[in-house]
């Protein structure tokens, strides 16, 4: 507390608080609020004042005794953002003081809007009241306003149990041993890798798998500048690699060479993870790396 004896704190507060006699008009408004309804009053000119006033500020005439339920939603006409709320403010987090024209009202009401950040608000933003738990007949019966619900989050999740069977199992068991298994169509003689049970061209069954070398040629590639959790770094090269003796390229990562030194026609060999770490998965192939052989001329 102050160390300067000539500096003192002084509080001026009427014990128990002042009373305010509402009069019939404001009293009606607050009574309706206690019932979680918002009403305005109609002036002789037909305008609906919200909150109601006893006398029309435009003409000085008494207002009529016609009360009109408005809102509860309304539209922000303008607002001021409060970054650092003060002790007496209705919210303890950043919020907006806003002028809100409730639906059916002829005037705008000042109230707090809890919008998270100022970008969530604009003139025209639709807002709805958040009511206090125990209304007493006070303007704070509306705790604050919140923006209208315009979207929801739908957490869609599907869980599958994937069983690698048939041809894929054959191929992955090969990969576990460190070999690529392909298959030659008995009709068109094209060699497919990974091994598959039928030829996509002829539709015929493909007989037993054959072992293919783990060397091949890059036919084409992309240099990816977008990060991917499965790639060692950015940029990374994803390439079409035509394994020797195969008729269809595989897509795989290229490594051990700077991205911009990768070429179409470059000779590459699979880099396998050490034997002890191998599983029945393409993760066994770390990437393909240049062999140093001369490039193949592509047609």
């Amino acid at each position: 507390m102050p160390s300067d004896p000539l500096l003192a704190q002084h509080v001026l507060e009427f014990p128990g608080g002042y009373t305010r006699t509402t009069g019939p008009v404001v009293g009606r408004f607050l009574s309706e609020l206690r019932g979680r309804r918002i009403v305005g009053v109609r002036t002789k000119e037909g305008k609906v004042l919200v909150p109601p006033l006893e006398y029309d500020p435009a003409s000085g005439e008494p207002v009529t005794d016609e009360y009109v339920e408005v809102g509860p939603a309304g539209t922000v006409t303008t607002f001021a953002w409060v970054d650092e709320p003060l002790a007496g403010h209705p919210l303890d987090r950043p919020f907006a003081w806003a002028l809100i024209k409730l639906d059916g009202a002829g005037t705008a009401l000042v109230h707090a809007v809890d919008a998270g950040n100022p970008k969530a608000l604009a003139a025209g933003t639709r807002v709805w009241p958040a009511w206090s738990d125990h209304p007493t007949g006070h303007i704070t019966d509306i705790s604050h306003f919140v923006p209208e619900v315009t979207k929801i989050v739908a957490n869609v999740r599907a869980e599958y149990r994937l069983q690698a069977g048939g041809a894929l199992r054959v191929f992955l068991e090969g990969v576990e041993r460190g070999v690529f298994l392909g298959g030659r169509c008995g009709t068109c003689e094209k060699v497919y890798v990974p091994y598959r049970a039928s030829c996509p061209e002829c539709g015929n069954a493909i007989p037993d798998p054959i072992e293919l070398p783990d060397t091949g040629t890059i036919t084409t590639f992309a240099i990816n500048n977008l990060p991917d959790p499965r790639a060692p770094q950015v940029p990374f090269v994803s390439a079409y690699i035509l394994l020797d003796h195969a008729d269809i390229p595989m897509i795989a990562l290229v490594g051990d060479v700077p991205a911009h030194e990768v070429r179409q026609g470059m000779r590459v060999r699979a880099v396998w993870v050490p034997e002890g770490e191998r599983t029945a998965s393409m993760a066994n192939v770390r990437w393909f790396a240049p062999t140093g052989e001369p490039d193949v001329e592509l047609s």
Partner: protein
Amino acid sequence: MANRCAVIGVGQTHYTTKRRDVSIAGLVRESALRALDDAGLSFADIDAVVVGKAPDLFEGVMMPEAYLADALGAAGKPMTRVHTAGSVGGSTALVGASLIQGGVHDRVLVVAYEKQSESNATWALSTHLPFSASLVVGAGGYFAPHIREYMRRSGAPGHIGTLVAVKDRLNALKNPYAHLKIPGIDQKMVESTPMLWEPIRYLETCPSSDGACALVLSSESKVTGTPAWVHGTAMRSEPIFRAGRDTVSPQAGKDCAADVYRQAGIADPRRQIDVAEVYVPFSWYEPMWLENLGFAAEGEGWKLTESGATALDGDIPWNASGGVLSSNPIGASGLIRFAEAALQVRGMAGDHQVDGARTALGHAYGGGAQFFAMWIVGREKP
């Protein structure tokens, strides 16, 4: 011989990054009502509804057609959903047209849409199933190697892609529905944007859009308003993995084009077609499809682009609307091509109208460049 079919109504939403003000149902209805209004009809005049969109994983709404029946006035009517990946908008129009051409219905409402802002297409296209080690990241990651191969084979200079990126965006400035509006776009601006999937730069890719497009198709006896007549329709597909498959100029695309040209009596597409709306989601696909669709000889497509022939004031304008490079609600993107082709021959394309357009090509492709859908529409009856 098939019955005659005409496009009598076209409706589009304004394509944009996020349509936060409408649900998916509200979005498709907006396009449907505009198409019906264009045709001077109401839902009561429609016999059947065909809906198209790309993978359900894009919005996470499974079988959306069931939920959209109310919004499209389809209660008590046949409703069909079409899915052929990116080409689906085109395929949807063709399924609708076949219902007219086959004499099953007199008026069919065709609607396609995507609300890309509900998730992220690159995520949805890169789900990384177990056991595979595919390092393809999104559509750009898939198509970049094939573009590189095109550049190698054709010897096209590196700036061709930027020419298309600029041309289509300049066209978009004339299309009130287009999403990307980049006043002052030029080659330098495109070249200054980063390589995402080299050789594809940021501004050489399509945007992610929310939007819907709708057509009203009619039999000859029920035509209202201004018709665009369907002169030919064709779809082709091929497996994504097939030995010897040409991923630069897929056979399915060539076969599809040959079929639709034969039906429409087109021997020389460059000269007989006045305007083409072709699915070009990455700028290099313009020269690639110019060759695949027979507008240029193999290896020569880039020269046509470079000469300015495909610009709005060229002799064979491609994507006068701004194309997929300017608006890409994926499921609708193919249908927008078909719709814009119809608008051109109806003389209703507004500021991007190609003067005197009488014959137009609408084209869409999808998957790993493995699904193709095309139609030729004309001002005169076939």
